[in-house]
């Protein structure tokens, strides 16, 4: 049961607080600065609340690689499509994976054509399906960062307890640190807004490598306009002072130690692996693979032959999602943006997810 409490939100959308923060940012802003919001939920909030238009000129917010849908590579999506086509499989995943294009198809297209593909809000629901349909195979396509990975871990633990024979996970989980380590050196990004929901799981110190190793300031941010502006103010202030630090601007959700239970569960189930990020290529130790103790639930093992036989779809070569994900190109600079590539006909992953930089830029294009 979710308790609804609008007052919880109101405080962080408060007009006078927003105006005051914008004023403070303008006062303390000391010259051109590029702040990357790592997370897709931030990208969406920034567009939704029109935050860019409230900031001084020269203070740029650019979108990073933190949309899990966008960074899932073509090969993994192709494997998902191959499994979803198998008649005996009930293929389950999160809603926004459905429209990810691969070649001229997508999970949504397969679903329209009759494949049994179901949207879940929690992977635990897939276990229920497995129990209801003992004669069928249930596959959960797991994507996301430290926010969704603990849920997948919990699901695998429970599947093992129940000794379910007909449940498996196609695992495409990724973690953020290695991607940032590969992305930031040499980039023109001055500071990071770090995802508050990731930090709520991992704890604050998880992001301390950003100032220590990457020499950039970082602020852990929530997702309401006041949260985002407080984090922007924090990094503007650190930038003006010339140092690189890390500040938790989302203490109401992020405890210093994070959520140790969730972390423990992830460690128990997953092992780090090299992973291919759409647009970024292969990054060592940036993915989570299902560990040996849970390998019986790994769909990549169980359906090895089917996945090996699958066609690998390729993105439109003109698509610049990779550059967008690296913050090297704005969505509007891609030749396909708004022409061949729109939310109705996405060419690249960034146009698909509600959190994708291109989809957000299109939906809230400048007026």
């Amino acid at each position: 049961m979710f308790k609804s409490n609008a007052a919880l939100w109101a405080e962080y959308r408060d007009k006078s607080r927003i105006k005051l923060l914008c004023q403070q940012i303008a006062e303390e802003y000391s010259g051109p600065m590029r702040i990357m919001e790592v997370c897709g939920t931030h990208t969406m909030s920034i567009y939704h609340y029109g935050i860019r238009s409230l900031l001084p000129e020269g203070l740029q917010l650019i979108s990073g690689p933190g949309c899990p849908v966008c960074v899932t590579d073509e090969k993994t999506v192709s494997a998902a499509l191959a499994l979803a086509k198998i008649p005996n499989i009930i293929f389950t995943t999160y809603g926004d994976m459905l429209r990810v294009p691969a070649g001229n198809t997508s999970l949504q297209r397969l679903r329209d054509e009759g494949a049994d593909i179901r949207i879940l809000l929690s992977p635990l629901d897939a276990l229920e399906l497995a129990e209801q349909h003992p004669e069928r195979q249930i596959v959960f396509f797991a994507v996301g960062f430290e926010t969704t990975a603990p849920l997948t871990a919990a699901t695998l633990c429970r599947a093992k307890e129940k000794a379910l024979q007909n449940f498996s996970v196609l695992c495409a989980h990724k973690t953020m640190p290695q991607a940032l380590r590969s992305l930031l050196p040499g980039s023109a990004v001055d500071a990071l807004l770090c995802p508050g929901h990731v930090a709520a799981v991992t704890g604050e110190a998880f992001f301390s490598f950003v100032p220590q190793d990457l020499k950039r300031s970082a602020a852990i941010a929530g997702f309401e306009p006041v949260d985002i502006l407080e984090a922007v103010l924090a990094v503007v202030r650190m930038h003006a002072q010339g140092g690189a630090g890390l500040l938790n601007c989302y203490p109401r959700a992020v405890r210093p130690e994070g959520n140790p239970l969730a972390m423990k569960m992830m460690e128990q189930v997953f092992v780090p692996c090299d992973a291919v990020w759409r647009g970024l290529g292969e990054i060592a130790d940036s993915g989570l693979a299902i560990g040996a103790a849970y390998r019986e639930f790994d769909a990549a093992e169980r359906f090895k032959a089917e996945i090996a036989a699958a066609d690998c779809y390729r993105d439109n070569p003109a698509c610049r999602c990779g550059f967008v994900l690296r913050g090297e190109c704005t969505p509007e600079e891609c030749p396909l943006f708004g022409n061949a590539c729109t939310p109705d006909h996405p060419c690249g992953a960034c146009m698909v997810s509600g959190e994708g930089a291109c989809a957000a830029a299109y939906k809230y294009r400048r007026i």
Partner: protein
Amino acid sequence: MSYTDEVITLAHGGGGRLYHQLVEEVFLPIFDNAYLRQLNDSALCPSLGTALAMTTDSYVVQPRFFPGGDIGRLAVCGTVNDLTMSGAKPAYLSVGMILEAGLPIAELRRICESMAAAAKEAGVSLVTGDTKVVEKGKGDGIYINTAGIGLFPEGKKACPQKIQAGDSILVSGTIGDHGLCILAARERLEFDPPLRSDAAPLHDLAAAVQKAVPDIHAMRDPTRGGVASVANEWCGNGLSIEIAEEALPLSASVSAVAGILGLDPLYVANEGKFMLAVSESDTEAALRALRSHPLGENAAVIGRVVEDGRGLAYVRTPYGSQRLLDLPYAEQLPRIC
């Protein structure tokens, strides 16, 4: 009691004994009215003495029952509201049902009772009907089509072409309730306070506001695609629709649930609300008329028509930023995190 008494079978669609039993025991007693009782291929209804408005709509909602209504209530309210929004007074409805073999007859009975209750609320008669049965696995329990005929009195007709710069945009109550209620019911998400569909016939509320403001410039119910969709229909020719974010009436549940699922209430379907465009001088009268009706107590002025040459629909935030209110695309999918 035999199997055929408990669930719909293909034989119920065959025109034989079971079909007649269904008509005699379910449809006739529940929908009861003189036109239906004629049991002719067509219902013969008295002349209405005015021009007629006619509309049709089909209903395929899952789950079939949800807080605040069911597919039957929707099927009556939706068609009644389509007639109402075009300025007509709803009078007669037809009902076509496609039933999937296996549907419990008790469930069909509940749906029919709910249709009859909604028809009574709306002052319409369900005068003719048809039933077909499809094999198990080829339907979703029940699909309903209703067509409606309404009186179309002479007089001033609301149409979007009458929208002018300076007009106020009003909505008759909280938005997003129906769509989020269905989504939550489908996903078995429970919220406190619970979400409830707003499905309701709007004829009476619309009549009240039409009486108070004879010159309504435009009137439309924001069903699929929500308020955003109507705002997009109403902008153009250099006239923009500016929606003031802080003025949107939202229930606490809708506001919270939309936040949790990453959905924007402006794009979510409503089944018991309508939007109005009226001149600035008629705004107070329209708002008063809406608010004095039980279905309109949360009515609000949510925006205005601006002549800026852009012809866009957009949202103005309380702290001064603007964002485009683009036409919705595809279905709204819950976000990953």
